[in-house]
């Protein structure tokens, strides 16, 4: 028996176990600055190794019930994906600049490629994540992906955003339900209306900031920036809580305990810190954000985590993930 599993003491009642993040600003600063220097010196080629190094640091310093996460991606796979992604981005920008109808082709192609991109990106990331000698994987396929990532988004656009919270709920549920840990599938009971309350609250914050800046033009830039960041912090924290609260792996239920104000404080103070330090505080900003987020996410462990079976995980290419990053997609939780 794993002594460090609290659930082992009382097998019948689930035990809330938060993720533990042990990353440290100074330690990460050393890794970050070596990464940056080598990336700049090699004209960006090293950035693939830098990404692996950074992820290995953050994964390695994330623990659940005494066991650590591992990031397994190979830098060469990331470099290959990155080179193709940059080429694709250059072609995309060149063709969309053209004044002819050809300019319409890349966005249409992109729309049809989007579900594939998201699926490949999640597959790469999850297949390269290991915990307790068992890897994660992603089983989403093109058809359902097209429905949630393209059709639902189009519906949201046609209704001027009224269906956007529903579209986002569909996307999140799709992601959770197609994630596997070894042979075990995650399940989600996220209800359709789950995101409407946080969305309306965030909208209210933006409107409030807008009204304030209309009344007092002198504080307009500050009010709008803070209002926007608050709205973002609120929406991201509350939706994450809801997604996690509705997710389950076997008998173990997830829970998110992020709170809007502390999370907003982390984001806002980070932005100020990075701006004032001309970027030197970036490592601390990343560590602070990860620490807050991870330590407010946990699992109600029912019994212990000993019973998961490993699965054969097909190794996937990094192209999807790198394309997604090049086109600035925000994929995953």
């Amino acid at each position, binding site marked *: 028996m794993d002594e460090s599993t609290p659930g082992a003491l009382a097998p019948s009642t689930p035990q809330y176990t938060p993720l533990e993040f042990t990353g440290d600003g100074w330690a990460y600063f050393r890794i970050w600055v070596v990464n940056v220097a080598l990336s*700049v010196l090699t004209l960006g080629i090293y950035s693939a190794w830098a990404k692996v190094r950074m992820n290995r640091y953050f994964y390695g*310093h994330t623990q659940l019930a005494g066991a650590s996460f591992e990031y397994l991606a190979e830098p060469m796979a990331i470099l290959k994906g990155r080179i193709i992604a940059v080429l694709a981005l250059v072609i995309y920008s060149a063709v969309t600049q053209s004044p002819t109808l050809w300019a319409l082709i890349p966005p249409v192609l992109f729309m049809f490629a989007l579900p594939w991109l998201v699926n490949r990106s999640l597959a790469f990331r999850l297949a390269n994540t290991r915990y307790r000698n068992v890897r994660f994987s992603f089983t989403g396929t093109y058809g359902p992906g097209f429905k949630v990532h393209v059709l639902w988004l189009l519906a949201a656009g046609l209704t001027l955003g009224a269906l956007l919270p529903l579209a986002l709920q569909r996307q999140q549920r799709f992601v959770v339900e197609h994630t596997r840990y070894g042979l075990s599938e995650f399940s989600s009971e996220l209800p359709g209306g789950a995101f409407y309350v946080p969305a309306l609250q965030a909208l209210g914050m933006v409107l409030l900031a807008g009204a304030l800046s209309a009344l007092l033009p002198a504080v307009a830039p500050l009010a709008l920036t803070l209002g926007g960041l608050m709205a973002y912090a609120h929406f991201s924290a509350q939706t994450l809580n809801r997604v996690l609260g509705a997710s389950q792996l076997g008998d173990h239920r997830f829970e998110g305990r992020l709170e809007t104000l502390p999370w907003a404080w982390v984001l806002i103070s980070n932005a100020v810190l990075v701006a004032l330090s001309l970027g030197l505080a970036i490592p601390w900003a990343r560590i602070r954000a990860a620490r807050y987020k991870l330590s407010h996410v946990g699992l109600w462990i029912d019994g212990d985590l000993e019973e998961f079976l490993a699965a054969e995980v097909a190794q996937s290419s990094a192209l999807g993930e790198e394309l997604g990053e090049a086109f600035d997609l925000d994929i995953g939780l």
Partner: protein
Amino acid sequence: MTAGVQGQLYGMSGSRSVTAWLNREGATLCWRDEAGQILASAPLEACEFSDAPGGAAAFVTLPDGQRFETREGSALLALGGGAAGFRRSWLSRLEGHGGAVLLAVLVTALLLYAGIRFAVPAIAAEVAEAVQPSVAQGMDRAVLRGLDEGVLAPSRLAPADRERVEALLAPLIPGAPSHVQPALAFRDGGEVVGANAFALPGGQIVVTDAIVELLPDAELQAVLAHELSHGAARHSLRRGLQFSGLAVLWSWVTGDLGALLTLLPVTLLELSYARDFEFEADAQAVERLVTIGRDPEALARALGRLSPEGSVARSSGYLSTHPPTVERLEALAAAVKRVRGRDENF
């Protein structure tokens, strides 16, 4: 009796684990449980060591797929004693070396400085040079349309006044690069824009009614010479390109951390480029005025007249990109002196 490196030993087929103590016996690694029973063993050379950067968890992968996870990474490395699979990567050593980290900070700072000071402006100037005049003029129309929908209103100047201003600009144009086709656009700037003139990417010069009414002809001509110089050097086009260049450089260093406020350093740097352009346009305006036999000190007088009224110092946006008037006046006086001194030598 338990001794050795403590950790969890995972089976090859699932998340099941047992607490194990690892010891080295000759060329063999041996895992034992609390009671001293052997759980697993493998030749040292066939095992693979890995650890998270910064020393969190460390792992040993056995040849059969079992894995051992421990927090005692250093003890584990010592146990491996430099065997092929048991070494910290050179990167780990680099990151652990204070001098190397300091060197990395210096190298990064130096390269960034070189990029910001030389590479970005040089590349932006090259690219701006390559932009077709028709494209730049298309941008002018788009920018002006945007301004017309926002802060600018149609001019209320009499046709005679407009012709007078056109006549002031005409003698300045010869000598400007062929790609610049300076055209005047008269607009009423209202309270927001005030007495102002500015050059668009393609060389079009926007003058507000207030500045035409405020400045005597000689000073207005000096201001036009300044704006013409902006257009000739494609300053606003280069500013846009420099901003993009800086943003790329910045995102390269900061990686995924692209929050709104973190663009502040980029904006600050861009403003410093903008102030350099003001000094450059002032100096070139002096040259132009002297070439056509006008009094170059009119520009300094125009600045002085615009400044106390407050339109230069107070208005935000375009004009906060300008250096303090006092500094500009000093630089102008020096430029006038330089041009005059040179001409007397001929």
